[in-house]
């Protein structure tokens, strides 16, 4: 829960016991072989793990680097989010909870939560900003088809930030029966640790799949869960770790220390301490905070963070599609965009081997892309 000076548990007293119970339950479960085997079984037989590692041969040749893609887009529901929710739903079931509450931005975490709830026969309530609902209708319908209740959030920026506030408020009122199934590596302790542990399967699989330790490991960062999971597999290697943020939502690059959603980290805020609205074409990255572990990795220098613009992201989606036949999510395309820009520069010298986590597939973004790309 604490990563250097970041993290913590800045929640109302009403939630403290639930956070403490969750922490205890996860500690217990995580050291229980039966729990881990059950999770591993679900990952293999249900979620489609291990996901493939794809050598992007044509793009590599064009760029002069060896680009390896960790294919979370192939996981069930279309993104890495399923790794986290399967673990949390198993944990919730173990804790006797009958309901999952979640926030969602792009809708991928909401779909994953609705999926896990259906699988375990639990009720799911997903908070989603009105603005995100409008741009991610496909995912809203998927959630509803899976039996989840999607609650539009009309406050504030009407995106992930306010959906998270609403989900936490809802949790306060339902803490007995509901587990708050948080989607990223933010939130109060134990979430940043718990979610990182559940996502480390990305990095661990990738490390086992790569013949050599890559020179650079890169992933997009909104809250930062796919990056945290990826980095976890390589933090003890000499690989450079690069997180790529949306220029309009770059807490690592433009944030200052602050406390939101229960944790202390770097936060986009104005001079008076009011949290700013992020602005990115990728709904999943429209978030003014960032997981506290990233703040720690960034301030200690172990990981580096870069930003790319919406235009670079759109170009990256198209280029990856045309070169490799893979349509990735707008979120994931941030990592691709950085590789496209940096390859051949001192930031990513020719000849480097790059492991890139493709966090999700782009089906959900077709409506957005249809308006933007051509």
């Amino acid at each position: 829960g604490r990563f250097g000076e970041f993290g913590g548990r800045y929640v109302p007293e009403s939630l403290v016991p639930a956070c403490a119970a969750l922490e205890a339950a996860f500690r217990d479960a995580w050291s229980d072989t039966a729990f881990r085997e059950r999770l591993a079984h679900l990952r293999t037989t249900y979620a489609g793990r291990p996901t493939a590692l794809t050598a992007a041969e044509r793009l590599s040749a064009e760029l002069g680097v060896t680009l390896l893609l960790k294919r979370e887009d192939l996981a069930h529901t279309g993104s890495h989010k399923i790794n986290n929710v399967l673990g949390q739903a198993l944990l919730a079931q173990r804790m006797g909870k009958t309901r999952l509450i979640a926030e969602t931005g792009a809708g991928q975490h909401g779909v994953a939560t609705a999926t896990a709830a259906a699988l375990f026969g639990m009720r799911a309530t997903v908070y989603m900003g009105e603005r995100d609902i409008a741009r991610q209708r496909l995912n809203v319908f998927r959630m509803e088809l899976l039996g989840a209740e999607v609650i539009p959030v009309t406050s504030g920026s009407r995106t992930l930030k306010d959906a998270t506030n609403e989900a936490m408020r809802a949790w306060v009122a339902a803490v007995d029966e509901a587990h708050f199934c948080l989607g990223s590596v933010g939130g109060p302790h134990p979430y940043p640790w718990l979610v990182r542990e559940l996502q480390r399967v990305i990095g661990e699989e990738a490390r086992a799949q790569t013949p050599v330790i890559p020179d650079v490991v890169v992933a997009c960062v909104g809250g930062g869960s796919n990056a945290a999971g990826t980095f976890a597999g390589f933090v003890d290697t000499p690989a450079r770790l690069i997180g790529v943020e949306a220029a309009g939502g770059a807490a690592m690059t433009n944030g200052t220390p602050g406390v939101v959603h229960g944790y202390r980290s770097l936060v986009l805020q104005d001079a008076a301490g009011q949290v700013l609205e992020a602005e990115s074409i990728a709904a999943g990255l429209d978030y003014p905070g960032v997981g506290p572990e990233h703040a720690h990795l960034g301030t200690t220098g172990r990981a580096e963070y870069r930003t790319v613009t919406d235009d670079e992201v759109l170009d990256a989606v198209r280029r990856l599609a045309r070169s490799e036949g893979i349509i990735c999510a707008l979120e994931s395309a941030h990592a691709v965009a950085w590789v496209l820009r940096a390859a051949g520069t001192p930031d990513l010298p020719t000849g480097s081997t790059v492991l890139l986590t493709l966090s999700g597939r782009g089906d959900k973004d077709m409506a957005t892309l249809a308006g933007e790309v051509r």
Partner: protein
Amino acid sequence: MKRLNPYLTGGITPDWIDYLLAFQAAGADAVEIGLPFSDPMLDGATIQQASDQALRLGASVASILTDLAAARSRICIPLIAMTYANLVFRGDPFTTGPATATGPEADPEAGSGPEAGRSLGAGSGPEAFCRRLAEAGITGLIVPDVPVDEADRLEAAATAAGIDLVLLAAPVTPPDRLAEIGRRSRGFIYAVSVMDTTGERDALATTAAPLAARLKAVTDLPVLLGFGISTPAQAATAARAGDGVVIGAALMRRVLDGATPDDLRAEVAAFRAALDQVDQEVPAATAHAEISGHRR
């Protein structure tokens, strides 16, 4: 005597100080001043709306404290600030990592050099925050998203500045933790009477009285009940279980609906009357002595 702490969002209207004076005139024992935050995790729709309105009108910690300082001579009851951790810890020095600017906006609260973003230096962090509250005449502080585990530094800063850091307890708070809260809270204990956000309710939560009783059993501090106390009758019921009440959303809804300070004075007076009625039910022996510094 049963305490009545009405809540007022600082800057909710340009003439917000008039509401504060009306609350005082109506017999408030103290007023909680909400310092509006963009992401009020524990607030329901009404207080969120009040905060958003204040922020839209340009309210900030600085502007609110300035307004209070200007009105100081007319205020004779204690003031308690209520806000969220981000505003309290804002500009808390940050020792490692790259420097980043938050932009060149001239804001009275921010340093203006390029180093302003990551560290606001001597004028920032909880120590400076508490000092500034004290300078504006505020004597208490409630920060709902700083539970006791995260409170060490803020507690020290508040003590140093002569501010009572009021801690909150919830229906789910376990006994050992309740005892610690009782021990470390200053001024009074804020009993969160319901497992929910702030906001009006049809009835006082069934969790209110048991929590108050549990608190009374572990502390001699006054126990004030808040959250969902919407009518004088509910306030009276709550006050019977504890030592008083905090009234927030029920008042702010009226302000948002356009009620005048006079209207609010009548509203608060009705709560006062209900509490006074309870006082008459209660044998004098069980009433707590007034806590020094809370009425001046």
